[in-house]
């Protein structure tokens, strides 16, 4: 499914921080995890992941360091910092409010159009 880019941009930071809160990781693995978490529905342009990670690093929410993988290649690993944990919990509260409101408004509205409704369960 194509997801609007503003929505992707807004959700990217909490998603990445949420994944890093589980433990240190690197760009490709984070992308794969986003893909799995959204059952393949959320696909980002791979290259855009790195400027985002670098921004989070500059703002002090994650820390980066190079490690050597089993394959012998260098990999840049990212780990969440205390400031990142704090930001994540803030974002989480904000998103809870937003999704709660959205769920309520949609509970009152008409059900989703059939085309999307069929596409959902077919997976």
């Amino acid at each position: 499914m194509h997801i609007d880019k503003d929505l992707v941009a807004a959700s990217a930071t909490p998603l990445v921080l949420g994944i890093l809160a589980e433990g240190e990781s690197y760009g490709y693995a984070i992308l794969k995890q986003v893909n799995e978490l959204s059952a393949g529905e959320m696909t980002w342009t791979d290259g855009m992941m790195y400027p985002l990670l670098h921004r989070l690093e500059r703002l002090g929410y994650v820390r980066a360091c190079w490690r050597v993988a089993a394959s012998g290649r260098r990999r840049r690993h990212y780990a969440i910092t205390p400031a990142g944990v704090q930001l994540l919990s803030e974002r989480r509260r904000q998103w809870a409010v937003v999704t709660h409101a959205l769920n309520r408004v949609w509970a009152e509205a008409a059900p989703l159009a059939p085309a999307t409704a069929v596409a959902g369960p077919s997976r």
Partner: protein
Amino acid sequence: MTAVPKTPDAGLEAQIGQWRGYVQRHRVISPDDVDELEGHLRDRVADLEEAGLTGDEAFAVAVKRLGVLDEVSREFAREHSERLWKQLVLSPELTQASPARSGRELGQVLALAVAAAVAIKVPELVGYDVTEDGPWYARNVGLLVLPFLAGYFAWKRRTGWARSLLLLAPSFALGALAANAYPYTDGGATEVLVVIHLPILLWLVVGLAYVGGDWRSHPRRMDFIRFTGEWVVYYTLLALGGGVLVGLTLAGFAAIGLEISSFFAEWVLPCGATGAVLVAAWLVEAKQSVVENIAPVLTRVFTPLTTLMLLAFLVAIPATGNVVDVDRDLLILVDLILVLVLGLLLYAISARHPQAPPDLFDRLQLLLVLSALLVDVLMLGAMLIRITEFGASPNKTAALGLNLILLANLAWSASLSVGFLRRRRPFSALERWQTTYLPVYAAWAAVVVVVFPPAFGYA
């Protein structure tokens, strides 16, 4: 993911090598970032091959999934504006357009430099005399020269005429009014203060043009700080070179019996010094990556030296006796030293890689800030005592205000530096503090220029 080392596939390696070369041409993506992207590409290719794709197919898909390179590099540029500063080109259209435009730009700059040089000589043609009306010239020199610099940036950033005028004209008009409408006492302190503060105010107004009106953007403000530092370096180099050249020319002509020093003093010196303002600005814009190597070196040399000087000073002041009785000139001198420290700090911050971990130099820098703070507090005490004892004068009030402004900046800088060294805060906090503080200088300079003369009876 399997981490089984694959037998190297020559075709794939060649393709990745080619891709790497292509990415590296986007200079906003640093070699480390290219490594990171390449690692990503290899991971993706490995996964796709495992899913049954051939090497070529997997490479094609993996590259496509990385995204359009120009868009990705634009995103990198947005994040790493300090790299953008190395005059990096955002998109291919700009690269192709640049030879023609840069040629046109040189012409534009030279025309503006000549216009500024003319502007500095025009008052003389209508009856002002540099030696007799020295104070008038001193008050107006910034007003005569800096509009051309602002105009250059307005043109370069394509800010548009109406917007530029709206942005810049009010401040220049206010400055012109304060410099000329007030009935200054000859050689009075307020006049000297205006002479010092008006160019600073106008320089910050030029900053508005420099950032293309985007003054809310902190990275753009940082760019302006960088620009200011590099401009000083270039201007100094030009002045040194010009001085040597003038000296040789004068000596040469004197040797053949021609006395041309008055012509040089009246024309070559003022016009050259004025034109160099614009040429230096153009050089900074055009050759950013050249000087970039100088900035870190200069800060690394002068940070420890300035620290030593401040520490020696701190020892010397109490040793010579009463702090309160220190000379009034010393207070102003110390203010100048503190301005220098702040300039050094700004220059160092602007030249530093924001992601690098804290190192020895950051500790040295903290020592510099702390010793400057000590000197500042000492001087502040002396100043307050002088003011309560002898009453407020324009000079003392201006020095006190500047001192308080520097104190606030240095104190918070020190606290942020400590946080950074303890890895509690990112370096960007320090950067952001400095860019947030910029308007304070402009506001203070404006107060000194506009409010001080009437408040102290133009004395």
